[in-house]
């Protein structure tokens, strides 16, 4: 029985970020009735874009920018997202590393030979290593990394036992048992190549010194960067997901914060909204928020045991993912000075400046750890309108640049409000060195966003950590967010988790949702209508020797 606006569903999802909506889509198509609640008036979480209020027609992606191969991901196809008019653009060149001496290094999106040719201008040996990794690790990506990303993580010892029976698995562990830093130092000789690989994975949220992630280096050479851009801004993708949910009969409560996860007789029974209304869940509640929000803020402390509370309290946020963003509205696109060295640089999407060596990265990481504002600036960003003119008025451009920066400044995070503009001005000066046409005359408007702004806007990204939890060895794979919850279920009956705090982490992967959907549908004995990878079967069938 429901009264006074109370409603009842099979399940409730908390948070309409991309994971929340993808999860809802899978569950709806499995025949379950599911509502999603979202505190913000616009759905999408990090898939957000704002029109510049001082320069109308210029749209700024205020959070997520670069999406990885989204049209190839299983949920994009399963949920038929192209039918919502969603288009993705594949830039020809994913990354352009711009160096201080006006040279550049280009990582192509598809063409490995072109990438190797660009690397060879810095080191023939590194180009050979890169090509060799590309060849040897392509089957690792296909058989190990890909299926693992889109499956609940297997318990580490069992995984090792299964994988080490094959040469592919041994090859994987040869690198997995080391850190990214160690592998990069060992396999590459050129400072620039080392800088490129290290910086890109730092910016993807990986922890460079953590043992267990070194496989990412050769895997990257095989999988590539696979950059794609959502036509019409990142928020267009939020609209697509929202429309998919509605088409499949789902309810979306925007502007409705969840105030409490209701626990009755030890099981999750619904959600109380901030306005007092109750949404009852006949079968399950899923939180896509971080563990502290889920277990400490939304659940009455009497209802869960102290061990689980302690786990949530100890969940750690990364010190090296927080970023500040410079947003620009421009009369013209940046003309990279490096075009003289390689004209193809004008076709690159993600532009990196100020990272000539791993020493540059070491310095900024030290500054982050010490809570200091970075002195040696490093930018990564892009100009979406080169690829998608709909994001600015005709002939005009928008650009964004990220700078790694600590959330916790020595003076406290609030200090960001005082220094953000000054930091932006410094960054504009740096940008001008790499693109001399970007100056007071060509800039229509600019504004900054600090790590503090990120956590204000998206509270699940606590301390500005957009990975929603550090990818350290204790919070990785089958230990993410902690072992008891790594399979997307929780010790509370009927309560599941599915956001970026789960395996495989942040970024627009949809994988936490995809994996949780399989778990929930099986638990509910509903229709598992899609073909999810079966990790055990795939890994059991790995050939003993290398594929021919």
């Amino acid at each position: 029985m429901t009264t006074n606006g109370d409603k009842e569903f099979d399940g409730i999802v908390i948070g309409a970020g991309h994971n929340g909506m993808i999860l809802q889509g899978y569950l709806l198509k499995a025949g379950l009735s599911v509502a999603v609640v979202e505190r913000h008036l616009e759905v999408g979480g990090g898939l957000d874009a704002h029109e510049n209020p001082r320069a109308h027609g210029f749209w700024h992606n205020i959070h997520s920018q670069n999406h990885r191969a989204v049209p190839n991901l299983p949920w994009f196809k399963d949920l038929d997202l192209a039918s919502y008019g969603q288009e993705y653009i594949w830039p020809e060149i994913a990354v352009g590393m711009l160096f201080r001496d006006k040279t550049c290094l280009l990582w192509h999106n598809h063409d490995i030979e072109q990438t190797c040719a660009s690397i060879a201008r810095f080191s023939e040996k590194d180009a050979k290593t890169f090509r060799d990794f590309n060849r040897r690790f392509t089957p690792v990506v296909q058989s190990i990394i890909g299926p693992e990303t889109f499956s609940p993580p297997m318990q580490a010892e069992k995984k090792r036992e299964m994988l080490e029976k094959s040469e592919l698995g041994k090859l994987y562990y040869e690198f997995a048992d080391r850190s990214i830093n160690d592998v990069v130092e060992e396999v590459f000789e050129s400072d620039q190549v080392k800088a490129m690989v290290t910086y890109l994975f730092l910016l993807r949220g990986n922890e460079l010194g953590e043992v267990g992630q070194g496989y990412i280096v050769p895997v990257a050479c095989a999988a590539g960067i696979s950059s794609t851009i959502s036509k019409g801004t990142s928020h267009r993708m939020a609209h697509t997901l929202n429309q998919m949910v509605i088409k499949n009969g789902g309810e979306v409560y925007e502007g409705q914060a969840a105030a409490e996860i209701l626990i009755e007789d030890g099981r999750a029974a619904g959600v109380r909204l901030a306005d007092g209304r109750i949404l009852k869940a006949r079968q399950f509640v899923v939180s896509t928020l971080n563990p502290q929000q889920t277990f400490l803020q939304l659940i009455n402390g009497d209802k869960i045991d102290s061990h689980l509370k302690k786990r949530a309290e100890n969940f750690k946020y990364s010190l090296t993912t927080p970023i500040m963003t410079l947003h620009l509205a421009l009369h013209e696109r940046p003309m990279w000075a490096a075009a003289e060295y390689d004209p193809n640089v004008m076709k690159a999407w993600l532009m990196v400046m100020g990272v000539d060596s791993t020493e540059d990265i070491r310095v900024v990481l030290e500054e982050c750890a010490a809570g200091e504002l970075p002195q040696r600036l490093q930018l990564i960003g892009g100009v979406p309108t080169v690829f998608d003119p709909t994001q600015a008025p005709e002939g005009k451009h928008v650009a964004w640049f990220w700078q790694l920066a600590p959330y916790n400044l020595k003076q406290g995070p609030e200090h960001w409000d005082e220094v953000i503009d000054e930091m932006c001005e410094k960054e504009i000066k740096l940008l001008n060195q790499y693109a001399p046409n970007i100056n007071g005359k060509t800039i229509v408007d600019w504004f900054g966003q600090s790590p503090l702004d990120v956590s204000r806007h998206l509270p699940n990204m606590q301390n500005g950590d957009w990975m929603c939890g550090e990818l350290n060895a204790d919070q990785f794979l089958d230990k993410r967010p902690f072992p008891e919850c790594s399979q997307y279920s929780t010790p509370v009956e009927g309560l599941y988790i599915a956001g970026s705090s789960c395996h495989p982490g942040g970024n627009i992967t949809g994988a936490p949702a995809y994996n949780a959907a399989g778990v929930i549908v099986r638990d509910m004995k509903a229709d598992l209508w899609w073909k999810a990878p079966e990790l055990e079967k795939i890994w059991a069938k790995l050939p003993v020797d290398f594929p021919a």
Partner: protein
Amino acid sequence: MSEDTFDVIVIGAGENGLVLGNYLGKAGQKVLVCERRLESGGGLSTEECTILGCWHNTGSYYHDTVQVTPIYQDLDLVNANAIYIHPPVQSSLLKRDGESLTLFSDLEQTEAEIARWSKEDAQAWRRHSEAFHSALSSHYQPYLLNPAQNGMGHEDFDSRSDSTPLEAVQAEFKHPMTQALLLSHFMVPRGILSNYEGAGRFLQLVVGTSASNRIVEGGSHELAQALWTEQLRNNGWVWDSTPIKRILIEEGKAVGVETSTGRELHAKVVVSTVDLQTTFQTLVGPEHIPQELAPQLQAFQLEEFSLFVIHAVMDEVPTVNAKDDHVSRALRWTLGFESAEDVQEHIAQIQAGKVPNRLGAVVSCPSLHDPSQALPGKHTFLLWQLVPSRLKSGDWSDVADSYAQQILDWVSEYLPNMKGKNVLRQVVMSPQDLVTKWQYPQGTVFGGKSAGAQLGADRPIPELANYRTPIKNLYLGGASMHPGAGIEGASGYVAAKVIADDLGISIPASV
């Protein structure tokens, strides 16, 4: 049917485009609505444009004709979470000396209030209000929800077909305050200036709707979300960030559209809800415009004014310099007009193409009525003033900031804390911004001048007044069409009706 083939393609996901898409979808048609911008809804736009967490209605804000037509009930928008708030204190005209005239949602209260100024006007107000409501379903709804006609078969309406609002108001109301209040309601939100010929016919409509202003919980964009939610639930698709490059025309017939990325989408019917110039000059193309249409298109007149808009976020709720307590709770405050002469002086400056220094504005504090639109403890503020769409000399971008400051200084005479540290952040929108943001022609927001021949049976031009165009299967459905902007979704509804007739289907409708 392939992914790129639809029954109906609608260009523009503003309110009219979505309403017409909804009706045709309910009639079983597979409808695609294409929107150039990222956000659907056109003027139904709510954005965090000052500080994150504070939402501002950057286009339409309050809606006064929601209950004049059955459209929202037909479309079941409440079920899609569009919830209207109807504040009891509706509209206050503030005098500089702290006196005021207020309209309430309750007619008794309004009558008593007007009687403080003029007993005769209070009686006239009741008479016209009751006349409007008794003729609503018999006359006004059929008039508003069918292709344009010259008369309505209703004496009060038809007898004023040649008068201006000023003449109509002065004939029926005696006190300068009542006159000023009514003329300001003609201007905002109807888009009708006091000297517009023939627009006096709307007197009873204006009286009848002046106290039915409603705002959407969470902001106007929530209504857009409800509309496209229902569109999707009814066999429809809404593709935003999908600019249309041209309408595909084969042998004089519209057969589809081409998007800016070169994708061709096909349909039996194409409807444009964007302005006439864009529809014909850009999307149809001059080569397809019949000879007899060209001079009529040229003669079509836009209104000569646009809006100057200020959004601000405030640390405290606005205080109002008014003797009566209830004034501080009004949804709408009208400043600067204490008599019909004040209105006329203001309008004369606009019509002369000058930046008006005779100020007159409508202001509101949306978060006072819907706290969800601001961060806890903060307040949102909105100001609209009519200004010339094109200045005789100079450019809006040169004067906008200093003009905004001049206006805010003046506003603080009425709302004393609307200055200094209490104003945390402000955003100014000049007519030029309305062009770049929505591509409104010259920043005009009302779809064409509501005067003379552009009222009634010839709106927008005789050749297009029945919503059909000389190009077969191409229809029109935006604010340029009868009954114009501001009658929520009505022209979209009428377009749906005309198209349904031509397709030999019927749309579900209570009118």
